[in-house]
């Protein structure tokens, strides 16, 4: 479990990092928290010539408010997200999802940006960011651009971030006062989601006025269950079963050791009902 040899660079600004990236090109890999990249290097599934560590760029860290949005720096760790009142108050479903990731050690290393760019369909950050209508801020030689979460995830392990670009932040519209739940289905505690459902709802007097549902590992990218979201408006706790059962309809989830596609579609329905019920409180 020893990675192949590589050069190591630790820039202190985004500009510097972009310059190194431009110079090194395809042969470079950006290092966030390393919780996905290091296993890949150690198992020699990839052997970049240069590793660019973003850990010294303070500008990429931290959680702040910008009007109606929360801005979470790409290098903000899961532990920082979990400790943040801003996230809890305005993006509760993200808090709940991040709380399910791995173990404390990994949560003190792994970053929101790394998780989003890594774009593992079983990762737990994508679905809540998608459900919350997040926007991803990407920096390149030509400056910054913003991409909606719906357009950001392109395929398995593939995002809108180009080889010569960096993800610098994620902007999340505030969902203040929304109820939220993240139902993660696993066989052992330390496991990636077999299926998970991120649900966040706004309700008045037990009636849902708005609902957002993100699905984890139900396709090659995180998905929104928009038909279910629409059907939930105006409904209450007693109506969930029939509406939520179809959350997995039309999806094309993977088949693997933990379950085949049919089973995952079934789980998506059950977990959506449970998540929405829990979010309603």
């Amino acid at each position, binding site marked *: 479990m020893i990675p192949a040899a590589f050069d190591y660079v630790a820039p202190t600004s985004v500009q510097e990092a972009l310059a190194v990236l431009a110079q090194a090109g395809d042969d470079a890999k950006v290092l966030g928290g390393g919780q996905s990249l290091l296993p890949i290097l150690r198992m020699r599934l990839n052997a970049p010539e240069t590793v660019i560590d973003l850990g010294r760029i303070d500008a990429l860290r931290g959680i702040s408010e910008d009007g109606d949005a929360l801005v979470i720096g790409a290098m903000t760790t899961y532990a920082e997200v979990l400790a943040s009142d801003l996230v809890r108050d305005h993006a509760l479903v993200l808090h709940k999802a991040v709380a399910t990731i791995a173990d404390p050690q990994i949560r003190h290393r792994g970053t929101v940006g790394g998780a989003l760019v890594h774009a593992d369909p079983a990762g737990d950050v994508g679905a809540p960011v998608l459900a919350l209508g997040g926007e991803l801020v990407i920096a390149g030689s030509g400056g910054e651009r913003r991409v909606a979460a719906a357009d950001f995830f392109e395929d398995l392990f593939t995002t809108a971030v180009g080889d010569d670009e960096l993800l610098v932040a994620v902007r999340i519209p505030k969902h203040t006062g929304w109820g939220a739940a993240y139902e993660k289905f696993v066989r052992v*505690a330390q496991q990636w989601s077999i299926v998970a459902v991120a649900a966040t709802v706004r309700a008045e007097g037990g009636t849902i006025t708005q609902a957002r549902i993100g699905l984890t590992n139900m396709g090659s990218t995180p998905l929104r269950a928009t038909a279910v979201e629409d059907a939930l408006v105006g409904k209450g706790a007693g109506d969930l079963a029939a509406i939520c059962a179809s959350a997995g309809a039309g999806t094309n989830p993977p088949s693997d050791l933990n379950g085949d596609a049919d089973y995952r579609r079934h789980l998506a329905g059950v977990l959506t009902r449970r998540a929405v019920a829990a979010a309603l409180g």
Partner: protein
Amino acid sequence: MTAVEDRPATEIGTRRLRKEDQRLITGRTRWTDNITLPGMVHLAMVRSPHAHATITGIDTSAAAQAANVIAVYTAADFPEGLGVCANAWPITPEQVTPDHLPMVGDRVACAGEIVAVVVARSAAEAQDAAELVDVDFEELPAVLDAMEAMKDEVLAHPSKGTNKSAFWQLDSAAAGTGGNVEEAIAAARADGILIERSYRQQRLIPAFMEPRSTVVDPTGEQVTMWTSTQIPHILRFLIAATTGMSESKIRVIAPDVGGGFGGKLQTTPEEFITLAVARRLGKPAKYTETRSESLLSGHHGRDQYQKLTLAATKDGTVTGLKVELVANLGAYIAIVGGGVPVLGAWMFNAIYKFPAYQFNCQTVLTNTTWVDAYRGAGRPEATYAIERLMDELAAEVGVDPLTIREKNWIRHDEFPFTSVAGMTYDSGNYEAATARAKELFGYDELRAEQARRRASGDPVQLGIGVSTFTEMCGLAPSRVLGSLSYGAGGWEHASIRMLPTGKVEVVTGTSPHGQGHETAWSQIVADRLGVPFEDVEVLHGDTQIAYKGLDTYGSRSLVVGAEAVVRAADKIIDKAKVFAAHLLEASADDLEWGAGRFHVKGTDKGVGITEVALATFASHNYPEGVEPGIDADATFDPDTFSFPHGTHLCAMEVDTETGQSRMRSYVCVDDIGHIINPLIVEGQVHGGLVQGIAQALWEDAIFDDNGTLVTGSFVDYTLPSAADTISFVTENTTSPSTTNTLGTKGVGEAGTIASTPAVVNAIVDALRPHGVHDIQMPCTPQRVWRALQSARSTHPGSTDEGSLQ
């Protein structure tokens, strides 16, 4: 003396913290990989990615030229051979046994087999260069599954002409230990109950914490090998036997070893290769495996198909049991690989009074990683089958699973009891353990809750699983092993040295790798010789220090190894008495022994055993005609096995919407005879339980159709962590063993043997009203959910989904 007064009255039975734990837990100790020697070189193995292939060429030139590479070797570089990974237990004289060489040059028979080794100045450089070795493989068809192998259509070793390695039978009518099983089955078919089932023991991987590692130092007069093994003595013998090296020129040391679970009961290709490279280069050499290598190339466990026929009368009295196994050995027959399934022969009948019994075992070769002992080795497989069957019988008769067991088990007043398989069970009390377990579990209350949840149609159903197991431990009476063509004896050796300063060195031939022998042996010796616990040092795992021994496996160390320690201690007392009498100017007959001192009866004159030790060190004044020394050693060969037992009760909550099962409570009452250290026993039981539960719920080693191990990392080989377990309730009842002085039985494997069927029985119990009779292990949520779906789509009582039939 005041310190002594604070001591427990006896060390035996005291919850001593383990003296080895600080160094083991902090890792500041001699793990093999921590050893660094001057000029040491590092090895990386080049392994086959294919399950079965001919090697048509190996180009090592690029690797040889890589930075800091010292050498690259293939099998061709060792025309004299590198030794043999020997099979020490051919189960029949006709057994088909393919040669198992450490490195192959012409054909690989499983993925992970070693075809070349790269030697470099650092492990990183060796690994870099290993990627440059270019091996041309021509793939051959591979056979992976044991049932496929039985067809002999694709051959794991074409030159052998068959995949069938050996057939082994025990028949109670032929052996004279019971009736004819076919007659019992015919009678049950005509007018009784016949339970016919097929179960699958999936393949497991013994995931010890410390990966295997070997360091060999060829400088000096003897070659020294440090290796992460359970069996330093057996390894040394087999190195000598298969390489032609003089046994006296080989010293094997198992320093601290981080777990084994049977997985380090092996002589490995990596050990032979590291030895050969070190000797060839004349330099110390180290090889440490990666976790991926460990999962693929350390031996695997279980992997059996079981066909079972249980005959009973209509009231549920058992009349016969027939067992037909097909056991997958993998590509080669590992050290005791063929024998592990055969150990089940004496265990399928378990605690029940079967009048007729037949055990059949067919072993087969496949193009998969070799299979050998894994915690329990043969007994978990047997216990699973019989405990699942007893539940099926209870369901058929329509009574509680405990009722059917009680009806058929050996009563406590029937011990010693000779089983239908011909084994004599030393002692036990199934009634007492069961009564206590029921009480701790709240059995009746949980049954009432189960009924309520069934009646209300709760989507989360409650199931209660029972396992009343026994096992045979204390490997093993040497004559019995001889009668089974096992390649060694089963005795154990110990010696005790009384040092002049009053300290005591205990040398044991057992080779602990996490079990806590240093603590337990110290407690035993402290009591026996009346010396402080802290003054006892336990030495082990070095063939030059513990020159004689047969190592640690099969729950043998306490019942066999510690008995040797006890006997050595008793010899010391006998010898010391002569000196004490001389020093006290009394007759030996007038001396009383107690609390570490000899007293002259009726006087206050006495001398401590440590004073005697000092006096013999000086030897200025000792009796005529006696050797000046009181050290002693002893070799103990047991007459028979010992038979621990226990009642395990498990409550599982099964979510019928998702198929997820969660453990609600687990109670076990194990009877392991007298207990030396309750804390160590709890540790062994808790760890064992988790491993057995893991077979029921989580672990499964899966190869794809090409023979690639899909579960090749801990992402996919779902090993549980502490977060997946609940707090177990463990207690003990005590039926002292009659096979050894201390009345102890083994406990190392009990939890693993007992828990697997308790869990599966609980899940099936939860779902039986839904028409589910079986779920194949591991009981993944998907399997449970599908079993429910298919039971619902037919009608209750008719599903075989999820099972093998």
